[in-house]
């Protein structure tokens, strides 16, 4: 009898112990994940605020390119100059206006359904200590991303994209960099300060999970599309959709060329979908082109030339091509 009565107690104890130990194991992992997400978000905002100048190595298609980079921010304008050092390329210059932080991608908790975020070990890049953060995809639709970030400033020293075979498809790494102090808060315009508040907030920007074909141009100008995805690969959302209409001279006379552009993103990877009226000279399907992490697919569907460009595996582009279709607007 004694044996019988002690059995349930033992079972209860062992279950409790099991639960406690599993909680102890799970909690640090979850805390680690939160830390990783926080550091990635810090990196996203700091890359806009910090001024920096340095040299970096960029590797794609097994080719190494050395680039010099200069990024400055005077509170009103941000300027980015990137110059290839080892070839005869001209510098790429981007001038960006203001602190448009509201448009910056942020990592939200929903992304943990498609990526697991891990804090890695400390490393040293360009003589500076940085923390490794890994975004590991939970499916085969995207690349594994590895970052090395300065925990204090949030500066990104190294970035690596790897495919399912653990091969590096794209990587950059600073070899020499000088990071300057961020712009003082009192020098940031009022409008920018409002945007800053949005970054601190953890809520994701309000975007429709799927384009709504019935939405009018007036009510949702950024989401209006004549096309929809049925369904999009898990985690991808329509971020922006817009149309351009132009005139072109063809054999049959002047025709109206309509181009629609839809931007998809899973928060870390983005895909641009261009839907255009196929021009007479450009009606042949194109093979998939790969350049580092970037893949490009172009093929006709429902009388339109559809081109997909994105830093995702080519199979993901094929999946999206298959699921895109004209919305029934009638």
């Amino acid at each position: 009898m004694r044996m019988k009565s002690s059995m349930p107690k033992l079972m209860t104890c062992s279950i409790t112990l099991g639960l406690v130990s599993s909680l102890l194991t799970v909690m640090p992992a979850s805390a680690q994940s939160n830390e990783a997400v926080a550091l990635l978000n810090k990196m996203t905002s700091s890359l806009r605020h910090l001024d920096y100048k340095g040299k970096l190595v960029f590797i794609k298609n097994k080719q190494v390119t050395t680039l010099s980079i200069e990024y400055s921010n005077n509170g009103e304008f941000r300027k980015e100059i990137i110059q290839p050092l080892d070839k005869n390329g001209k510098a790429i210059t981007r001038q960006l206006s203001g602190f448009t932080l509201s448009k910056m991608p942020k990592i939200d908790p929903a992304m943990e359904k498609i990526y697991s975020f891990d804090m890695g070990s400390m490393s040293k890049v360009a003589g500076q200590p940085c923390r490794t953060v890994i975004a590991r995809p939970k499916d085969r639709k995207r690349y594994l991303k590895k970052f090395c970030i300065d925990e204090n400033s949030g500066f990104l020293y190294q970035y690596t994209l790897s495919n399912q075979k653990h091969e590096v498809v794209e990587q950059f790494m600073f070899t020499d960099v000088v990071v300057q102090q961020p712009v003082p808060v009192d020098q940031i315009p009022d409008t920018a300060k409002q945007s800053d508040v949005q970054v601190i907030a953890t809520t994701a920007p309000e975007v429709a999970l799927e384009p709504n074909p019935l939405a009018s141009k007036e009510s949702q100008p950024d989401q209006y599309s004549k096309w929809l995805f049925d369904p999009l690969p898990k985690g991808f959302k329509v971020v922006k959709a817009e149309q351009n209409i132009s005139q072109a001279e063809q054999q049959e006379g002047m025709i109206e060329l309509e181009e629609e552009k839809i931007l998809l993103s899973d928060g870390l990877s983005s895909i641009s979908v261009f839907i255009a009226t196929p021009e007479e000279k450009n009606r042949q399907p194109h093979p998939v082109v790969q350049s580092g992490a970037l893949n490009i697919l172009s093929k006709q569907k429902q009388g339109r030339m559809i081109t997909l460009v994105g830093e995702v595996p080519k199979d993901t582009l094929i999946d999206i091509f298959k699921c895109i279709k004209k919305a029934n607007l009638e």
Partner: protein
Amino acid sequence: MTINKKEHLSALLDGEAGDFEQRRLLDEIQKDDEMRNSYANYALIGEMMRTPSSSKANIASNNFLDSLNAKLEQETGFIESSTPSIANNDSVYEYPNQKKKNGRIIGFAIAASVATLAVVGALNLAPMGQQHEQTLPLASSPIINDEITDINTLASVDIPAQEDDKWQYDPEIQAQIRHYVNEHNKYTSITGIVPTIRAASFKTGF
């Protein structure tokens, strides 16, 4: 830093290092200050030798050669590293005639360098239009992302050989791809600078 390491760095810059070697070297560059400095210096030397747009390097002038020589002198062992001199490397067996061969190789390397500089100088003296006959202008396109107010066009993208030859030779298709890649790169990315890095690297080969 050993001569071997410098040879490997040189191979890395020339894109001749294998996958494993590339990873190993990049790991070492991260950890080794001296190696990182040498790498940065080699990149600078490469820039001076290859950039036609730089006014000083445009013509292989005496000043250019002097500054290059001065830079090479500062870099002790660079001349050795660019030639297969292995006298100080214990791990490599030296053949009896190696020193004589090394002397010949150094002589040949100097002659080849002079010839290369002459060709570079001649190319730089040629009109720009002749040098860039194959480069294709990118059709101007409306800026979709209103955050970006200016971005240079990707004027010299080389599309690689594909199964379909049309890709390789049709300038309209090439221009169209560049247009799409350019448009895609305009969007904000979590990594901030990566789209611009990609855009810059497209200029040096697709």
